[in-house]
């Protein structure tokens, strides 16, 4: 079975309830996860991401489409097949779901005894996996004696002890503080890479999105493009800032604008420049860490956009249609007050030149009506 795609979803739909009260949760989901790949599933509550996770995990039977996990078709699968698949999957739960009456090593053993191991080998394996997640000194403690982060790591040890080829994680950082949450996802990432497992991770936690090879955003049961989701989220946050703290908003915007113009004037930002910029923003301007990151990130985005255009790489991002669209949009804004001023025309030409775009006004007779 080597080389086979561990998780393959094709046109999966799912509904709860029957008849008039039937509510469709998932619509035509198709995707696949390769060995060693980490997929993060995001989306608001009720978007269907947990349902999707339970379908992949053989905890629910798919109704339409095809759910193939480790080569087994799970659509309308019998319980025996489901159980067989469940045993090959490592689950990491939001609330760790350890058995309170068992020690950490006994908890791990609950997972291990589902597969065939020799007794001594099993002991060895439990010790190894617990040491690997940093719980070597807590093997015989009960979950009640551990911190939240330690419990979650014990849960990870339990999920990984059978070296599963598929790992499913549901909000693994939800109950953890920032540092523990980071440690936990780093651990999942590291172990998944080592064992070459396919990982699906459901999360609300934006701080851990960077471990993903790919992000699937679910909304109302549909997969939505990430750009859409990110821009919507970001604009919502910026509007929020504008509404509640207009001073900070304009302060930050000004900083970002100024910084990007000066720093990227030569189209190059060296590491020293970057460090210096951070220092100034922190020490001189007394900005918070988050604000510094925000300014730096916006500047970087602008720099990247410019650099790609400047490198004549325009076609990759801006094809002819998009170029036209951008310029048209600029004209539309200028025309919004009913009249196109000369200053506005000058600015549009400046922008076009700066980004290396041809001014379509010379090609056409004027802005489209």
């Amino acid at each position: 079975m080597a080389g086979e795609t561990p998780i393959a979803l094709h046109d999966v739909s799912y509904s709860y309830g029957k008849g008039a009260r039937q509510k469709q949760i998932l619509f035509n989901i198709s995707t696949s996860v390769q060995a060693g790949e980490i997929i993060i599933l995001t989306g608001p509550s009720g978007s269907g991401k947990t349902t999707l996770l339970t379908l992949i995990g053989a905890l629910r039977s798919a109704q339409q489409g095809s759910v193939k996990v480790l080569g087994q078709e799970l659509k309308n699968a019998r319980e025996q097949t489901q159980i067989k698949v469940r045993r090959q999957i490592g689950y990491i739960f939001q609330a760790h779901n350890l058995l309170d009456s068992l020690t950490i090593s006994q908890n791990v053993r609950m997972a291990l005894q589902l597969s065939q191991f020799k007794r001594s080998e099993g002991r060895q394996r439990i010790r190894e996996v617990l040491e690997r997640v940093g719980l070597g000194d807590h093997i015989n403690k009960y979950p009640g004696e551990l911190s939240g982060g330690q419990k979650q790591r014990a849960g990870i040890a339990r999920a990984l002890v059978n070296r599963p080829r598929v790992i499913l994680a549901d909000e693994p950082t939800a109950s953890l503080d920032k540092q523990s949450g980071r440690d936990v996802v780093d651990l999942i990432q590291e172990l998944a890479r080592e064992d070459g497992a396919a990982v699906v991770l459901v999360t609300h936690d934006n701080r851990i999105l960077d471990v993903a090879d790919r992000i699937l955003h679910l909304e109302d049961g549909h997969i939505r493009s990430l750009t859409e989701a990110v821009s919507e989220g970001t604009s919502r946050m910026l509007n929020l800032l504008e509404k509640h703290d207009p001073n900070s908003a304009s302060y930050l915007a000004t900083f970002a604008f100024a910084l990007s113009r000066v720093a990227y004037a030569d189209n190059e930002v060296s590491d020293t420049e970057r460090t210096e910029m951070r220092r100034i923003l922190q020490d001189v301007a007394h900005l918070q860490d988050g604000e510094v990151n925000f300014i730096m990130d916006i500047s970087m985005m602008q720099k990247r956009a410019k650099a790609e255009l400047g490198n004549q790489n325009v076609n990759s991002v801006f094809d002819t249609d998009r170029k036209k669209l951008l310029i048209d949009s600029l004209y539309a804004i200028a025309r919004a007050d009913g009249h196109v001023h000369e200053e506005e025309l000058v600015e549009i030409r400046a922008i076009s030149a700066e980004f290396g775009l041809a001014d379509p006004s010379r090609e056409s007779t004027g802005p489209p009506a």
Partner: protein
Amino acid sequence: MFDFMPLGWLQLKHQKLRLLSAILGITFAVILIFVQLEFREALFVSAVRYHSALDYDLVMVSPKTEYLISSKEFPRNRLYQTQGMPGVRSVTPIYSRLANWRNPIDRSRSRSIFVLGFDPADRGFARILTPQAHEKIKTPDQLVFDRLGRDEYGPVAELMAAKNSVSTEVNDREVTVASLYAIGTSFGLDGGIITSDLNFLRLFPKDKKSAITIGLIHLDPGEDPQEVQARILSDLPTDVLVLTRQQFEELEIAYWNNTTPIGYIFAFGAIIGVIVGLIIVYQILFADVQDHLPEYATLKAMGYTQGYLRNVVLQQAIILAVLGFLPGLGLSILLFDQGAEATRLPLEMSRESALQIFALTVAMCAGSGLLTLRKLRGIDPAEVF
């Protein structure tokens, strides 16, 4: 791969207070069952104390007799009639009645007592009375007293040990206790005295010598009691009953079990004990399963089967049964020692009844476990996320 990891036990052990209360509850139920069943058993054993202590092969009683203490009279001649029949070796006519006994220390206190009278030359009381006692009751107004009777009759045994004879009144007639025997009490019987037929008639001057209440029949060696019984019954009118030892005992037990509510009450008490135990165990197991539902759902998500979870619950049920039974057994033995002393009833823990009640306890706990399984069936592993 590993030694068996008893999840059910580990879960029980983890909540020590709950485990303790479960054990106490089951212990209570076990004691309840033990006491009820053992009292019932004691009732039956004690009710046939005389039946089993007397020496006879067949017994003749009146058809109106329901139980020993209120044995009805029948003509003594009916008993003598059997003497000529083949297989019958000898007979012993016995007079019996309740008399009024006065406490030898405080004569103002009196209590009814069971009196048996027989001819000391006849066979039948060898296992109850010593040969010396047989001799002594030939003397007028001398009798033998049951030292295992209730304390209300007075400290007769102690007085005997000190003075070798005790005087008191029976039916307002001055009598002397010349010796002691040991039979014990039962539900209808507080104590007893045995004396000669002549002394018996002195205590009951209005009784006719020709009317007796019990007739013992001894057979020639090697005779089959049932064959002789059939012969006797076919030759005699139906105004008497002839019973084997077993039938005689069954008659007595049937009275206490069926005619009086006593047997029923104890059986009912035992059933209540089982129900109480069932409810206690069910409550405990149900609460335990309820608490562990998320954990069980997790186990199902990991790939454990429904059968595994069922075994966990049944394992807990059996463990609770054993842990609750053992202290219940111990405490019951203690209680029986106390109770036997206080009531002079034959309260003993037999191996059979202990095993029986252990089986009952296990069945009780397993039954509760099975009730709890319905809760388990609803577990949906998809709910863990």
